[in-house]
Each structure stands twice: as structure tokens, then as C-alpha cells.
């Protein structure tokens, strides 16, 4: 039996809009096995980013249970906040790669230094960092700063950072949302290729239904918040 990388059960999350509570997630459950990919789709405000934040511990759910790579986080189990924070931090540092739509890089560091920083935080050797940039086709830009390269090149560098840490799970929040179609296609292709080659799992939040079909699973969070 394949071990699940991630299991979430009964996730609930509400936000307040003025004085009104708005339910973003109501009883969401999902499971993802090693090597699988899941597309989260839905309109703006449907909770895609919230789900990703909850699944990597950047935001606590109001209720529910998340199990990532054997680490269990249950809202009903009392635990000191800093202990929960420390377990999540260790997971993000060593096992979970996160890629946002933009601003994934430290602007004061070169592309290569960004990848090195990410690898070092994960406890990885930083010897391969230049190779990762080469593999993503931006090796010659290693010494450039983020503002000196294009949006597509920045996102490639972000992928290099995510894979340089040798993750078990990658969470990508609209990673190609700000790119033109051609560049987006190239970046997406590289993302899936690397995911397949390294056998890690992937959760991809996207508006793009065509892109969603390339994932092994698809979860539509609905048209209306709270649905």
C-alpha cells in the first residue's frame, strides 16, 4: 500500500468581512499519495491559497486535522503554539517546497545565492545549486539579481529553489499566473517534468482548467466561497 504524503480531514476556515463571518472552507477533506499531483481550482476568493497555507502550516484551520509525512496536526489536540510552529517549520524547511505566483526570491541576493540560501536552510549541500539553475535553462543568469531578469526567469529560479531542497511535497500557488501563455507553458512543463523525475507530490492552485487536467487529481473548490 502506498503511504499518503498528505491527508486532511474536516478542514474549516472562516474569515470576517466587516462584521459578517464568511466561510471559506467547510469540511474539506483530501488525500495525496507519493508522486501524485492535485489541482485546486476555483474562482478568486474560493479558498485555494487558504488551503495551501493550511497545508503548509502558515495558517491554522478553525477545525480539522492535517497529517503531512507522518506529522499530525489536529485542532482538537492541545499543543503549545511554539511546538506546533516548530514542527511545521521543520517540515517546510526540509520537506515542503512552496512556490508563489511571484516574489519568491530575495531581491538583495543573486539567483544563485537565493537557491543556495534555500538549500542551506533545508540542510542540503549547496554544491548542486548552479546545476539546478542550468537544468532550468537559466544557468548563465546565476549572478543576476531578481530585478535584472524576466518574470519567467524568476519563476524558473523559484522552481530551482523548490527542487534544490529535495522536497517530498511541492505547493504551488498560481505559479504561472503572472506570465504570458508561452512562458507559462514552458515553466509548467518544467514543473511537471521535475515532479515526475523526483517522484515528489504536487498540489497546484490554479485558475487554468486546462492546466488542472494535467494533474492526477482535481478538486474544484466551487464558484462561491463557502460552497
Amino acid at each position, binding site marked *: 500500500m502506498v503511504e499518503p504524503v498528505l491527508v486532511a480531514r474536516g478542514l474549516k476556515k472562516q474569515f470576517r468581512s466587516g462584521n459578517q463571518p464568511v466561510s471559506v472552507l467547510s469540511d474539506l477533506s483530501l488525500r495525496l499519495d507519493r508522486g501524485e499531483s492535485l489541482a485546486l481550482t476555483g474562482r478568486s476568493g474560493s479558498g485555494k491559497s487558504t488551503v495551501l497555507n493550511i497545508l503548509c502550516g502558515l495558517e491554522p484551520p478553525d477545525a480539522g486535522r492535517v497529517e503531512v509525512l507522518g506529522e499530525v496536526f489536529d485542532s482538537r489536540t492541545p499543543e503549545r503554539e511554539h511546538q506546533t510552529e516548530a514542527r511545521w*517549520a521543520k517540515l517546510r524547511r526540509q520537506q515542503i517546497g512552496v512556490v*508563489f505566483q511571484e516574489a519568491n526570491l530575495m531581491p538583495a*541576493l543573486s539567483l544563485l545565492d537565493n537557491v543556495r540560501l534555500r538549500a542551506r536552510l533545508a540542510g542540503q549541500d549547496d554544491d548542486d545549486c548552479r546545476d539546478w539553475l542550468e537544468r532550468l535553462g537559466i544557468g548563465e543568469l546565476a549572478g543576476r539579481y531578481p530585478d535584472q531578469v524576466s518574470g519567467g526567469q524568476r519563476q524558473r529560479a523559484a522552481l530551482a529553489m523548490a527542487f534544490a531542497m529535495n522536497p517530498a511535497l511541492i505547493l504551488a500557488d498560481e505559479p504561472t499566473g503572472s506570465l504570458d501563455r508561452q512562458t507559462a507553458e514552458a515553466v509548467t512543463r518544467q514543473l511537471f517534468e521535475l515532479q515526475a523525475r523526483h517522484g515528489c507530490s504536487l498540489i497546484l492552485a490554479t485558475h487554468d482548467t486546462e492546466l488542472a487536467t494535467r494533474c492526477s487529481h482535481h478538486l474544484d473548490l466551487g464558484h462561491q466561497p463557502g460552497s
Partner: protein
Amino acid sequence: MTLLAALFSHYRRHPLQLLALAAMIVLATMLWTGVHHLTSQARASLDQSESAVAERQQVIRADGEPVSVQDFVTLRRAGLCVMPWLEVASSGAGRVVGVDPLAAACFERADQGNAPWRGELDGAPFVDISEAAELAEAQDPPAGALSLLISGTDSDASLPPGYRLAAFSLGPDTGELGESFLLNLDALGVLVLLITALLLRSVYLLGLAQRRESFVLLRRFGVPRNRISRLLVLEIMVLALVCIVPGVWLGRWLATGLGSGFGRALEGLFDMPLYAGRDGGWLVPVATMLAVVLVACLADYLRPLARRLAVAGPSQGLLPALFLLAGIALSVWAPALVWLFVAVAMVFVAAGILAPLLIARLADWRAGHESDPLSRWRQREVSVLARRLALPLVALQFAMAMVLAVQALVTTFESTFDQWLAQRLEADYYIEVPEGADAGAALAWLAEQPALKASGRWHRVIRGEAALTNSFGKQGPVVDVFALSPIGPLVTGWQLFESVDTPWQSLAEGSGVMVNEQLARRRSVAIGDMLSLQLGQQVSERPVLAIYPDYGRPAGEILIHASALPPDFRVSFQSLSISPGTMSIEAISRNLKQIWGVEQLTVRDNRAIEALASAIFDQTFLLTRAMTILTLILAAIALLMMGWVLFSTRAWYFRLLVVWGLPRRQAAAQLTRLALSLTTAIALLALPLGVWLTWVLVHRINPLAFGWSLPMAVYPRFWLELGVLSLLVGLSIALLMRRQLNSPASAPESASALSGGER
């Protein structure tokens, strides 16, 4: 929606940011107004006190008898403008002075408003002369000293026979020392204005930084850049107008609160209400602050010029560095005060440009040598923030340097002044020798008194003038003569800058003179030099035995044994300084009156004078310290606010570290190290600037302005205090930012935000 409303909409969404901007303008205005108001008040007060105690002229009888009402009538009938001044010592009301308002009117016209009671005639202790006369009559026995003041335009020749002019003085003259301090307060005011301008410029830039995305959007909608700039200037001017008024009010309130103590000290010293605590105008502070706001906002238009002047690339700091060196060189060799102030301005401008550049360069260099990527990132962030927080950092650097210099100056001044005053007022009492009295008879009597003979704590002082002559015997500048005899323990303990082996013994033998620092500096006189002097008609050469400090005034002076004065030396004034020991001052005074055949003697208690003079200066020192510390606090608050806003724009990158798995505590620790690196670096750079400024104040400005210098002293305890303060500012920024780390921060909204300003 109008364009202005669209621009302002940012603040409707973020009212705290608007509040922060407004608070900065209010605080900056308050600070400058406070210093300005305080300096003006102190200047007016000291002017008034000087005017009150300045040596004036009085008419006395040639026969030495005290003047009476009959003399007043005679003089007025002779067409002279004299004013009766009846001083009555009253147990209940202290010292009361009665003046005649009608005579005062003529006096005031003749003296062009420079009358001692200027504007204070309606209040105690000045009263109408009839009231003072009643008070004098009511005492048992009737007491009261009548003097007849005459305007400065009259001379001996215009007096009827039987009368002559004499000096009239109310008390000790501390004016020159006060002027020196006022000059330093003025310099402080200029520096505070500079710091205020930097803070306001920071506020303006802060407003721009906060709304950068709105501007980008408006420009995309086709609004020209110039129109946006004009509206921003308009907006900041309106904001300034609204904030400057409460700022000025607060500054004046602060200055009045601090200044009332100063006023009390002055009143204590001169026995009259002297503090000019009246309301000053609003126009100067409001107009100055508006001008400063305008300059701070329009400085953008100078940028193209600055860019042309700046040399790009690695030699970017070359021009400011050269400017700095030129400023330092000018400060060493400046021949006049104006050049010295130019040098100070050059050094501050250059230091202000170089400091952020230096921190950024150093951080970049360290980043290049770090093997740990996280440390490298932190160093790069220090570099970015040093450049983006340049203005508030420089304001803090200036404020720290100023505090260092002023603290060192005040502490040095305090100790030096106390020591000097104690030496000059070593005797317990000071007795004026009446005009025409035989001082020799009094000296013979004093010398026979066993108590004084045993202690030797008394001497006679003769004042007059001498001319310096050149080698051809031609008369040169006039210097004051301070002649003493006998030389005893009242003076032998004086601190001397330089001297021969046994200076006092040589002086007592009449074999030389001592010179004050002012004369030594001006005439480049050294120990052992022969000074050619004309005393009376006698020209002689005398060796210089010592150089002594003389902080009270700029005039050159020689100290000589009274026996060395020729018989034709014109004595302008004589006095006795006595510490009676086991004798009573009343007994001495009674005997002297008998010897001199006079009814009244002027006897002053030196301890009271010393205490009151010290009180004035203590209060001035306190005010100066308070204002500089206030400047520092404001600069620290400015950095805190700017740091808070600019760190907010970097908050995402700290959050990125958390996303990458760095525990929040460690991310917060990185933030703390970063903030501390910045504030510590600026404190370290403020240190040499502060020491240099101290040197300029004590060794350059004072000698050029007044002819005397203070000892240069450094106080490492102040350095430590500033170090602690810089750590506190850094920790406060980090604490403020920690809250942002704990709340979800949004990423920069568009990729266009990455335009290079981030690194």
C-alpha cells in the same frame, strides 16, 4: 473623484500612516520652535540683565560726601538729565529701588531706550521714588542709598563745579560668558533646524514610498508626473500648515516651561524680574517651518544637479570625501568665525552623504566575504536599508553627534567655570574703596590685624589700563591692568595654564607680569617673553611669568604686583578682597568707614554672588542638555517610524524565510540583528563627528569669538549612553516589526515592484 482625492484615498485606508506623518511634522516643529524660543528668550533675558548691571555713569560729589536731593535739584537746574536712584534694603521686600518716572523719561530718550528698568517699571522691585523714600524713612535708623544716574552722553566737562562722574554698577557682569553660551545655543539651533529639515524630508519621502503603487497606477492612466508632484507638494503644504500651528504652540509651551527656571535664577542673581518670558511672535517659527517644509519637498528638483555632480561607480563617495577633508582642513585653519561655520556645514553635509554610503559599502563587502547564505542575505539587507533609510539615519547621526558635543561642552564648561569662579571669588567679601579714599591707610590697618596677618587671606585690587608698546616705544593696543598686593593664599592657588617655576614669588617681587589667555593668544605671548608696557608715563619691559585663564570677557589683561605701578598710574577702580576668618566683616567695615570717613561702604558677599552666578549657568546647562536630548529623542522616534514603515515593505522577505522553514523566532532574531547593525553603525559613525564638533566648539569657536578656550575633554560615559540608546532604538524597531512577522503579510502586488529599489 478628483485627482487629489484619489491621491488622498490611500490615507483614508491607512489613517495611521497619515497620523505618523502629521506627528513627525508636529514634533519637528515643536523641537525647532522650542530651541528657537528658548534661545531668543535667553538672549533677551541676558541682554536685559546686562543692561541692568552694565556699568553706567553716576554723578558724585567731588568732596566725597553722599549726594542728596539738593544735589539732584542743582544738577537738574543746570539742565542735566539725571535720574535719582534710591536703593533701600528692606527686610520684607528684599532690595527695592525707587526711580522717578518723570526723570526716567528724559533719561530714556537720551539713552535711546537703553535704560536699566526697561519695561519693568510697573513691577517690583522698581517702585516710585516717593514709595522708596517712605520705606527708607520707616526704617530705624532711616536707611537708603541715593545715587544720581546720568545718561551716557554727558561728560565731566558738562557738570557744574563740585561734581564729577563715576562708574555705577549694580552687580557682577556675567554677560560675556553668557554670550559664549548663547553662541553655542545658536549653533545648536542651526543644527536642530538641519535635523528638522532632514526629518521633514524623510516624512515627504515616506509619503511617496507609502503610495508608490498609486502613483504608478495614476501614471498608467495618463496623469503627467509633474502634475502628481505638484499635487503632492500642495498636499504636504496643507498638512504642514495644519500641523505647524500646534507644533509651534507646543514648542513655545515647552520652552516657557523649561525657561521659567532660568528666569528664577536670573531674578535671584539680579534681584529683579528679568526673564523675558513674554510672548514672542508666531510669524518667524511658522514662516521658517513652512520654508523648511518647502525646501524639503522641492529638494527633488535638485536631484538632476546632484546626479551631475555625483561621480558614478566605485568613486561615488570621492567627492563627498574630498569635501569632508576640505571641511576638516578649513576648520583647522579658518581665520574667522564665518569660515568656521562654513567648515562645520561642509563636514556635516559630507558626513551625511558618506555615512549611509559607508554602511552600505561595508555591508556589501561583508556580504561578499560571508560563506553562510543567510548571513550574506542579512548583510545585503543592511546595505539596502542603509541606503533607503539614509535621511532618518543621518538625522540620528547628527543628533547623536550634537548630543555628544554639547554634553562634553556643557560638562567641561560646568567644571571649568565652577573652578574658575571659585578661584576668582576665593575671598569671602569684596569691599569697594570709595572714590578719593586713601587705600594706603586702610591697607596699613588691615596688615596690623592679627587674624588677617596670620591667614594672609586678603589683598587690594587696583584696576586701570596699560598700553602695549613695540620695540620703538610706539604705543599699541590698550589692555586692562589687574594689580594685586599683597600676594597671598587668595591667589596663589589659581590654576595657571603655563608658568615659570615660582610665578607668584616672582610676581610678589615685582619682577614680571602674568597675562590672561586672551592676551597670550592675540599677541602670541609665551612664558619668558618680554612684554613692553606703558604704565602711566613709564615704559618698561617685563618678563611674562604665567598665562592664566580668564573666562569672563574677551579683553586682554595683565596681572601685576601693585608695587610695580608707577605713581602716575591712573587708577580707575580699587577694591579689597577679604576673608575675615575670626574677625567679623561688620567690624572690618566699621573700621574702614572710620578710616575713610564715609558713611556707606559697598560690601558684597562673594559666596552669594558665586551661588547665584552658578545657579544661572546651571540652569542654562540644564536647558541646553534638555534641548539636545529632546533632539535626540525626536531623531530616534523619526528613525523608529521610518524604520517601521520601510521595514514593512521588507516584511514579506522575512515572511519568506518563515515559509522556507526558518522558525519565527529565528526570523525575528535576524530582524533584530539587522536593526541593531544599522543603529550601532550609525552610532559608531556619530562618535568621531561628535568628538570633532566638541573640538570645534571648545578649541575653535570660543577662541575665535571670545579669545579663550576650554580644555578639550572626552567623556566615554556619554559614548556608552549613546551606544545604549542606539541599541534601544534598534530593539524598538525590531519589536515593532515582530508584530508584522506574526501577522500574514502580503507579497509585493506586482512584478513591476521589483524595479531595483529593493536591493
